[in-house]
């Protein structure tokens, strides 16, 4: 048993057998075969792994490269606007880009000119055949008369089966203004290279072309319906008063948002034409004028604010005329000798205003007007901004400035100043951009609220009182207050008999919300016009052409129409019936 176990042990003791000479000899015999096979395996594995590595690299590369969708990135199907839309406060489109086509023809490559003309006439019967024929016979490249082709017209042209050599169709983006003339002075125009050349198109050119913001429409504070009503009324007024131009501005006095800005004459934005005539300037923002008696309100406000006067302060023995630097200053009409401050504004007394300004003093008066921002260039959202003319202050200047003579500003600045006086004395910045909101707490108070209240009451009396100069604007239910201004126009530094009539109104006076400014440029007397007073009395054959006889009438008509839209105190209005 012991021997067996020993043998078994010997056999199993591979531990030492591995090192036996016989084993080694045996391995050496097969070593070459093993070596060959192992090298093949390594070669194959190398190939195999290198292939894996290549695939892996390829996969990782495919994973890491940015996704390029070869199918959906066809430019033909995507309309990429080159300029953002412009919309009004109600989302009505005022300007939008769209694709149009231009078609050019090379007559040299037309094989059968007669057939071409016949086909062309069948497809486009409206085209001038003679003109087309002459152009084709000339043989020079030309664009079709109607440069801007619609999609349908383009398809019609394609259906003619003309070769690319003959017909050159070009797709371009074009800016369309669906409201045509309505906002011409505000929106402005762009040129062929998509560059804003006037209006808000120029002022916000970069924003409108910003690719990040291009899908968001530029929202304006303007209201298309109000704008149309006001513009329409101004156009109609031309028949009655035959003015050479007119302008209107409707503004929210609490936040400075402009609801309507009209300047006539205007122009169709869709028809490109260079407008160089002075008459086409934006009268509200660019026009710098002497606006006349509307400045008397500032004189009285300055007096009340500086505690120099009160509405019931009476000025006794007022002269009919005074002289300043040899020049006569007189009243526009016969007025009582004793007038209260209130009466001075209601009856629009020049001499009374001079007396108040003299009582205030030059520095205080100047400071007050400056605080209302009447003399510096206004910060506004358009390129077309006028700068009031600078002048030297003196005793005479103080006297004339007190009733709005020899002092200039833009109508926009005038409206701003009135808004400040009426809204409780808070500073506002006129704007046409809807996103430019400012909260009331951010506002700076320039004039005290007591002065503001007093001024509002006096302005209401200018319209409501029989002696007032603006009776025709007393629209029932809207508590209109305001001030008239009839200024003489100067040409080459000499005053002419031509007038620039202004009426600035605020309504409703008890809680002012809006200011409406109406300007008529050179209105004529309207003897044919039947004036209807608030008490029902009708008057015809009037030969005066001061503001009270034209601008006020127009303002009254406008307020009557826009009142229900603005929905001011409708309840109050209904209570009156």
């Amino acid at each position, binding site marked *: 048993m012991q021997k067996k176990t020993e043998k078994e*042990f*010997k056999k*199993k*003791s591979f*531990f*030492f057998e591995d*090192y036996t*000479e016989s084993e080694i000899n045996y391995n050496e015999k097969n070593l070459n075969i093993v070596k060959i096979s192992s090298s093949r395996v390594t070669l194959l594995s190398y190939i195999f792994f290198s292939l*894996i590595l290549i*695939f892996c690299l390829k*996969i990782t590369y495919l994973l890491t490269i940015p996704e390029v*969708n*070869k*199918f*959906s990135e*066809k430019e033909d*199907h*995507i*309309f990429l606007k080159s300029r953002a839309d412009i919309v009004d406060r109600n989302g*009505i*489109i005022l300007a*939008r880009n*769209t*694709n149009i086509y231009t078609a050019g023809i090379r007559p040299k490559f037309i094989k059968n000119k007669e057939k071409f003309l016949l086909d062309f006439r069948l497809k486009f019967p409206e085209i001038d055949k003679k003109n087309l024929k002459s152009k084709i016979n000339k043989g020079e490249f030309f664009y079709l008369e109607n440069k801007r082709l619609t*999609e349908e017209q383009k398809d019609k042209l394609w259906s003619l089966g003309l070769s690319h050599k003959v017909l050159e169709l070009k797709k371009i983006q074009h800016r*369309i203004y*669906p*409201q*045509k*003339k*309505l906002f011409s002075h505000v929106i402005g125009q762009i040129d062929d290279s998509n560059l804003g050349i006037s209006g808000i198109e120029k002022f916000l050119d970069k924003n409108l072309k910003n690719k990040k913001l291009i899908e968001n429409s530029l929202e304006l504070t303007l209201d*298309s*319906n109000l*704008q*149309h*009503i006001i513009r*329409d009324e101004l156009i109609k007024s031309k028949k009655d008063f035959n003015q050479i131009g007119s302008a209107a501005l409707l503004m929210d006095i609490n936040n400075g948002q402009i609801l309507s800005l009209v300047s006539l004459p205007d122009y169709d934005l869709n028809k490109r034409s260079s407008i160089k005539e002075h008459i086409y300037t934006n009268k509200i923002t660019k026009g710098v004028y002497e606006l006349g008696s509307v400045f008397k309100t500032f004189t009285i406000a300055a007096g009340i604010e500086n505690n120099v006067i009160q509405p019931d302060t009476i000025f006794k023995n007022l002269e009919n005329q005074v002289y300043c630097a040899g020049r006569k200053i007189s009243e526009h009409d016969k007025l009582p000798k004793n007038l209260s401050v209130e009466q001075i504004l209601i009856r629009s007394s020049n001499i009374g205003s001079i007396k108040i300004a003299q009582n205030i003093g030059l520095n205080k008066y100047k400071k007050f007007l400056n605080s209302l921002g009447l003399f510096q260039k206004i910060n506004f959202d358009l390129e077309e901004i006028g700068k009031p003319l600078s002048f030297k202050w003196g005793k005479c200047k103080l006297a004339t400035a007190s009733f709005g003579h020899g002092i200039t500003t833009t109508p926009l600045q005038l409206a701003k100043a009135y808004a400040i006086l009426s809204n409780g004395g808070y500073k506002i910045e006129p704007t046409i951009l809807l996103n430019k909101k400012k909260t009331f707490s951010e506002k700076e108070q320039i004039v005290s609220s007591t002065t503001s209240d007093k001024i509002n009451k006096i302005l209401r009396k200018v319209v409501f009182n029989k002696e007032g100069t603006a009776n025709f604007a007393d*629209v*029932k*239910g809207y508590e209109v207050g305001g001030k008239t201004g009839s200024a003489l126009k100067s040409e080459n530094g000499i005053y002419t008999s031509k007038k620039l009539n202004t009426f600035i109104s605020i309504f409703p006076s008890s809680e002012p919300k809006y200011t409406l400014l109406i300007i008529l440029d050179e209105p004529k007397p309207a003897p044919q016009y039947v004036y209807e007073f608030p008490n029902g009395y009708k008057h015809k054959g009037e030969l005066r052409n001061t503001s009270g006889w034209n601008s006020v009438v127009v303002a009254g008509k406008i307020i*009557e*129409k826009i009142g229900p839209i603005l929905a001011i105190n409708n309840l109050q*209005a209904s209570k*009156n*019936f």
Partner: protein
Amino acid sequence: MNTEDKSKKSYINPEKWINTVSYEKSYANPEKWISTVPQRNRYRFSKKYSFFITIFIIGLISVPTIKNKTRNLEKEISNLKTSINDLKFDLHKATLDYEFITSPENISLLAKEHLNIELVHYKKSQIKHINDDYNSISMLTETENNDLYENKISTKIKKKVKKNIKEKKQEIEKIKKLYSNPKELPETIKNQVAKKIKKTKSGLQQLYDEPKEAIDIKKIQRWGTFQVVKAFLGIPVVPGK
């Protein structure tokens, strides 16, 4: 000595080693030794790589299929996108057209052309008049309604009255026929008529003697209605006139 001899000498003879080991005490169990030796795992390599290979093969197959599917999806998406873009552009143009057509200026022009009336803005005072007119109109309609009601009632009455008149006329005709020949009348009627004559005679006598007592309200009413009926029928109220 050459190198082979040296290697032979230094070669360990296992027999020698085995003899040196005490057989009983230090008997080494080979099983134990075998188990202690780390066995060479022949399958580990192939297992390890086969796993990766299978994944790789699966990957190789799935990548193109997925890619093809995604390509098809991309095509579909692109088609949808193009149709969406076309629709978007159509909408873009349509809204522009809409704004042009519905611009206030255009609407007023169209109204002038097609409505044949000028749109008028009403004054507040006119609204008041409208209210007044409305009130008067409403009052008018009320009265009209009342008249209608009365007319309706009267037609009913008229019909009834007409019927009654017809009946009465027929009765009168019959009576006329009867009284035209008093001899042919039956005895009972003759007696009735005699009684009636007596009654009226006595009544007339009473009226003659005491006229105030003879007139009472009932009689007056009866007389009144009789007169009205007479007037309606065209019979003279005062006989002979």
